[in-house]
């Protein structure tokens, strides 16, 4: 169900349709990116495997739906603790060892993880494209000349809710404050007696939980296959760079911008060329505005 397919109505309707599409899409991208910006902002590691966890979330939803006839919205609640746990395991086994390592080690470790996960999916579940089509995927909602399906709308609201929850956690809980402190100055945090290992553990687990949940949420909206994560990875990095590393509010705004580019691009050039836009956008952002829209270099703040 392509959110940007025009309905052949007058201009205003089209703009409204595109506008709402952007917002809906933006919300989902925000959930993906917010986890990434946390990981990047606090741990300073570029995780090339981030998209693979999204893919795993999509597969989780698929198998739950196919084998157990469970709706993705239900699976969501299970997926959050599940992916949190997965994040912990991944951290302990892999990420912990590379936090202080050179860039190359970080790049190739997470790239290795990415290939391993992609192909694990390939081996286990084959490369066939799968879809999840719960009842709400085909249920249209028509509001003021725009039309969407229920899946998108609910995905959006849940994504926003989760993002806000994460935001609140970072802002108002003790752990959240500790995490932000570590992001600002790792050495000072250590000197203050903060257990940075615990901070990283939670950060990574939260980030993976967020992206896993996002995978479940978007499963009705996209094709599911082992390499589904790749486009999202680059996209989320565009968002993170645009918004400034570690800046959660920036990630939200960045998501909207990226969604807008994708929606507009699809509308004008057709969906076949859609993917090219975030890649071009990515390169453009890196070349012209690597410090992000708000000029934060290796942003120290976390949206508060």
């Amino acid at each position, binding site marked *: 169900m392509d959110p940007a397919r025009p309905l052949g109505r007058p201009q205003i309707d089209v703009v409204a349709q595109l506008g709402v599409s952007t917002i809906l899409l933006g919300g989902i991208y925000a959930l993906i990116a917010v986890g990434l910006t946390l990981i990047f902002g606090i741990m300073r590691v570029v995780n090339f495997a981030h998209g693979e966890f999204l893919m795993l979330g999509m597969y989780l939803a698929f198998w739950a739906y196919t084998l157990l006839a469970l709706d993705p919205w239900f699976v969501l609640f299970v997926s959050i603790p599940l992916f949190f746990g997965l994040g912990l395991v991944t951290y302990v086994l892999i990420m912990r060892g590379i936090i202080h390592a050179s860039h190359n080690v970080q790049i190739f470790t997470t790239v290795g993880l990415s*290939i391993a996960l992609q192909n694990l999916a390939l081996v286990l579940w084959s490369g066939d494209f799968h879809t999840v089509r719960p009842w709400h995927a085909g249920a249209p909602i028509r509001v003021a000349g725009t039309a969407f399906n229920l899946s998108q709308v609910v995905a959006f609201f849940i994504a926003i809710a989760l993002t806000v929850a994460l935001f609140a956690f970072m802002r108002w809980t003790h752990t959240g404050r500790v995490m932000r402190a570590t992001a600002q100055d790792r050495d000072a945090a250590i000197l203050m007696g903060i257990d940075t290992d615990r901070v990283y553990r939670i950060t990574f687990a939260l980030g993976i939980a967020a992206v896993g949940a996002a995978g479940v949420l978007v499963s009705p909206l996209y094709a599911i296959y082992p390499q589904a994560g790749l486009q999202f990875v680059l996209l989320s990095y565009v968002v993170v760079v645009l918004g400034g590393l570690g800046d959660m509010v920036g990630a939200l705004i960045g998501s909207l911008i990226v969604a807008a580019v994708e929606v507009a691009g699809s509308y004008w050039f057709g969906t*076949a060329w859609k993917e090219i836009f975030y890649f071009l956008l990515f390169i453009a952002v*890196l070349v012209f505005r690597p410090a992000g829209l708000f000029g934060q270099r290796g942003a120290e703040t976390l949206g508060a």
Partner: protein
Amino acid sequence: MRRALARHRGALLLFGAAALTPVVVRDAYFLDSLVLILLWGALSAAWNVAGGYAGQVSIGHAAFFGIGAYSAALAGTRWQQSPWLGMLAGIALSLVAGAAIGYLSNRLRGPYFALSTIAFSQVLLIVASRWRGFTSGSEGIPVPFRPGFATLGLGHVAWVYLALAVALLYWAIQVWLERSRFGYRLAGVREDEDAAQALGIPARRLKVIAVTVSAALTSVCGTLWAQYVGFVDPFYVFSVDLSIRFALNAIIGGVGTALGPFLGSILITSLETYLRATLSGVQSGFTGIYLIVYGTMLILVVRFFPDGLAGLAARLRARRAGAHA
């Protein structure tokens, strides 16, 4: 001269063995594996110029490979030209693309640069796979086989020697990088750009040169590969998996060493051949398994054996020398 021979006895052994193989072995399948080992080795050596010697880690080298492959295929099918001409066109295009990527390397740090190279190769993939009018879109281009050297239509034995020549050339280029003034200064840039600049080294320029040369070398092999395999599939020649493969061989074998990419290629390609033989019949299952192995190897090698196979060999040699002393 004798010292040079002694120093490079590993390479002498390997390339010598490769040269003698067609004399001894006639099995087409075996020779085919040999050609692939040599080509993959050369491709990783090309990657190594940018990734190992200049420290610019790219995960998008498939972009240049694909350019080379398509240049040959298009030259042969669209314009009825010799693939060698296509190779030249591919080199020219890759020089431009490489310079662009080199420019990016001066603006972006490590992981971001790597991400941007992925983006670049993906853009090319999408363009190639959708531009039906020019590149036959997602169907790919079958490369016609016309016997003869000018059209690169060769038999297995000839391919072995051609691949060997290329491999030797690329190995020699790397050795030159280890011993030349340019190479030393490039090493300085790799280790610490600011410090290198303080020594009068134009760091940015050297990086661009390294990446551009690396791109051209990759493109040449792309052309050869397309002619050898006979089919250009956009989803393969521009894929991220392929880019990773180039880096993988070099890392496993010893990044930043001349023989490393070839050692890595021997190990990885042999492993792949072995797995293919034992798991034949399980199509996608096989593809996935050996890539899982590679992914895991990458994680382990990069953390625990950063010097790769070449490093292990050097350590063994040192220990043996110590034992004799």
